[in-house]
């Protein structure tokens, strides 16, 4: 008898376990597929960041909690205005499911986790305003001289490296010399800030021993001569970091990234200096008393990597004071956490649907725009598809409002460049049908799907990337929406495609891809040429019109140094892109950062503000 009841009990226990597993199963598989997104802040992203078990409900029709948030309702700066206590340690959590790589120098790092670590002990020599234009509040001041295409860089007095050596302008020049060095192991040094310097290309090719356009005048001053002054130079173009020449003495350029000077005892000019590095896991920093802006408030900062699956717990228990790269999709589940304030800001990225309108011509190194030969070549067809997508609903249902309908190809992240007035096609399936009817797409054979105006069947292949819980329902939603207006859209390969395979197909203009869903991260410079220029391989839609190219070229010409002129040019370009629709931007996105309420003077606002600089960070009560 005892045995009978025991097995009954077992049965129930098993049953409960099975249910628990079923509920948790959905979240586990994507963990292996999402780390691609951990590349550079401005690199290509999968459509979904790392997610975790608790959130699989979000993939259903209704979100776990139906609340919809707007990032503008959040603050960007902590509201605690109390007087910071003397000293104290700030514990920074870096949410990442991989250890950081440990290339701890701005001039060599590759991954975003490393960038976050370096930002705590080193700093750019320039500051930026809300338009991502360089300003002169940093260690180096610049003066542009348009008459002779030169820029004078002047270093402020009295700035020292963490090892006590003074920072000289030669350290700034040295960064150019190392990055431009033929042996430099990386992909930096190909942007305007480098290539426009006179003599840079000869130096990079190894034909010259120095960069002829750089002249060091004295310890504090250097004059750079450029072949042309492009507006991108002052919008993140000038290399923003110094490299301590004395620290790397005797190290070959090719070995610098792996040298102990980078990995074990990195130095910088920031308010905190590195005490110890636990490879991949943590960095302990103490305050640098000789920091040039003033003595830091905190005794030190400790950064440790926290798994995304437990980062919310770590915030709740106060183990960490703030979490960088907090997984946004966990926010609705943990928003009520006590003692934690949530900050939010817009991310420099957008999701889009791209249409293949031509192919890449390898020999000429430019796109071959042939809309008349392509399935998606008819702008009316593309317009109808835009009308069929309810991106606001997607933002609310799938992302709780932390992603929302995108309008133009310049995101509100570039607030002063984003054109708010552009009228984009609204969600309106009836109008979409009407457009298709008028353009001659009609269902002639009665199979429920429209045929082309020529009477050929129209089957559109849609490539979409795997990764994250929402990838699949999202793709299905779009297919459903297009089906409703009578378009036969199929997933390429019949399923979602893994990141590398996806870009392999899109890059090589695989005929099995007619449209695709991708995402771009944008840098500090607003110039879209790198994505839509006729001679750049990243122009995946293979789109080129004279008008668009001309506008983009104007936008980065010396004439556009005037901000208003540049704004007008880009406004026009954004309008043109809505008219021509080589791609349809679908979603903009925001990110959230949880901060413990004891923290003061912390901000995620990108605009320069003396008060919230890292050396002013503080805590109102010290723990332990």
């Amino acid at each position: 008898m005892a045995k009978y009841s025991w097995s009954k009990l077992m049965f129930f226990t098993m049953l409960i376990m099975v249910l628990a597993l079923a509920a948790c199963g959905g979240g586990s598989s994507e963990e292996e597929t999402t780390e691609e997104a951990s590349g550079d802040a401005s690199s290509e992203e999968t459509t979904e960041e790392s997610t975790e078990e608790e959130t699989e409900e979000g993939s259903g029709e209704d979100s776990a909690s139906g609340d919809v948030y707007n990032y503008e309702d959040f603050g960007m700066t902590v509201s605690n205005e109390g007087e910071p206590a003397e000293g104290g340690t700030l514990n920074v959590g870096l949410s990442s499911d991989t250890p950081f790589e440990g290339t701890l120098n701005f001039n060599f790092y590759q991954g975003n986790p490393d960038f976050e670590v370096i930002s705590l002990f080193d700093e750019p020599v320039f500051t930026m305003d809300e338009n991502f234009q360089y300003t002169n509040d940093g260690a180096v001041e610049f003066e542009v001289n348009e008459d002779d295409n030169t820029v004078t860089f002047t270093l402020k007095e009295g700035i020292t490296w963490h090892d006590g050596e003074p920072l000289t302008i030669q350290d700034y020049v040295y960064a150019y010399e190392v990055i431009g060095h033929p042996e430099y192991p990386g992909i930096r040094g190909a942007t305007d800030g480098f290539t426009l310097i006179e003599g840079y290309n000869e130096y990079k090719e190894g034909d010259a021993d120095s960069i002829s356009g750089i002249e060091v005048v004295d310890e504090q001053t250097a004059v750079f001569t450029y072949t042309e002054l492009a507006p991108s130079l002052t919008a993140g173009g000038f290399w923003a970091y110094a490299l301590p020449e004395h620290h790397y003495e005797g190290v070959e350029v090719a070995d610098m990234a792996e040298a102990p000077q980078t990995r074990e005892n990195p130095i910088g000019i920031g308010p905190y200096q590195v005490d110890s590095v636990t490879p991949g896991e943590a960095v302990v920093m103490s305050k640098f008393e000789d920091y040039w802006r003033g003595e830091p408030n905190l005794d030190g900062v400790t950064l440790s990597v926290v798994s995304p699956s437990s980062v919310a717990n770590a915030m709740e228990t106060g183990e960490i004071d703030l979490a960088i790269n907090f997984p946004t999709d966990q926010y609705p589940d943990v928003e009520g956490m006590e003692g934690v304030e949530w900050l939010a800001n817009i991310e420099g990225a957008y999701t889009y649907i791209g249409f293949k309108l031509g192919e890449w011509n390898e020999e000429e190194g430019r796109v071959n725009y042939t809309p008349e030969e392509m399935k998606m070549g008819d702008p009316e067809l593309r317009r109808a598809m835009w009308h069929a997508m309810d991106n606001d609903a997607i933002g609310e249902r799938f992302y709780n409002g932390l992603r929302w309908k995108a309008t133009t190809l310049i995101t509100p992240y570039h607030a002063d460049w984003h054109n708010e007035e552009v009228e984009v096609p609204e969600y309106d399936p009836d109008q979409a049908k009407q457009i298709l009817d008028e353009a001659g797409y009609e269902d002639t054979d009665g199979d429920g799907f429209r045929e082309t105006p020529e009477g050929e069947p129209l089957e559109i292949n849609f490539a979409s990337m795997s990764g994250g819980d929402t990838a699949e329902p999202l793709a299905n939603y779009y297919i459903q929406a297009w089906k409703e207006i009578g378009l036969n859209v199929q997933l390429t390969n019949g399923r979602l495609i893994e990141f590398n395979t996806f870009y392999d197909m899109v890059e090589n203009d695989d005929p099995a891809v007619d449209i695709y869903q991708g995402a771009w991260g944008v840098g500090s410079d607003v110039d879209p040429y790198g994505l839509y220029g006729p001679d750049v391989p990243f122009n995946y839609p293979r789109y080129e019109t004279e008008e668009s190219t001309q506008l983009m070229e104007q936008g980065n010409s010396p004439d556009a140094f005037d901000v208003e002129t540049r704004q007008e040019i880009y406004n026009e370009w954004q309008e043109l892109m809505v008219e021509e629709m080589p791609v349809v931007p679908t979603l903009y996105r925001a990110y959230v950062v949880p901060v413990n309420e004891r923290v003061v003077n912390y901000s995620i606002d990108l605009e320069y503000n003396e008060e919230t600089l890292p050396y002013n960070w503080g805590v109102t009560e010290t723990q332990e």
Partner: protein
Amino acid sequence: MLKFTIRRLLITFPQLVVLSVLVFIMGSLMPGDALSGLIDPNIPAEAIQARREALGLNNPWYIQYRDWVFAMFQGDFGTSIFHQRPVMDVIGDRLMNTVWLSLFSTVLIYLLGLPLGLVSGRYNDSLLDNAITGYTYLGFATPQFIFGLVILWVFGYNLGWFPTGGSVAPGVAPGSLDYVLSKINHLVLPSFAIALIGLVGTVQYLRSGIIETKQKDFIILARAKGVKESAVYNRHVFRNSILPIAAFFGYEVVALLGGSIFIEMIYSYPGMGRLFLDSISTRDFSVANVLILLYGFMAIVGALLSDIILSIVDPRIRIK
């Protein structure tokens, strides 16, 4: 014995060659390479192409393979593109962590698993046996990552008894006593998470082995001779029932050395499992290739180890 060992090791060499060729071919068939994750509008495509050319990523696989083998014979295992440092350094960083974790887990598995199996088999169908068997069923059914999260939540966050992530407390100087203690402290939760789930197989094997063995004639004979009950179990039954476990021991150790991906993720523990997975998904083949060779080598050694252990435990199958 020695001859056997040497022969086994000699066979491993061609196996490794075939393995590495296969890995290279499959790697070249996979779309993308280590630089394709760096798609960035701010970096001109020519710069990426030039880098690809410089790294030899555009060469056909057999050229790459040849270069790789030549370099390896000169002691150069290549440089990780993703980590920007020599592969051996990258692996070296993680290897010790994984060795410690697997050592702890293995010890726990056998320290807890053997007594449980022994008790369960000796007193089979008792309440105690039922409890133990019930636990093993639960253990079989519970995925490791759920269990890992649960004990992290209970003992790490709620009770705060153990650190919740990493392999060592930040800022402790390597080599000091504090460092060792901190390491051990950080190992407790992850190794229990592995062991408490991992030991169920051992318990089950041992239990059924004991139940089977204790009815054998030679046990009855031993009892009839008046051997003490504890001696019957500890000397005769146990030794005979442990065969299947001994046979698996080598594999078990090797599997643990391969790293436990879920546990490493949950506890932010920098071990080999994550490194392997990451290097494949970032197409960092220089790391992945060396790891696969290492795993291949360990699997072969593990099989060998199992055979050797088996021949020690069971003289009947000792190879001449």
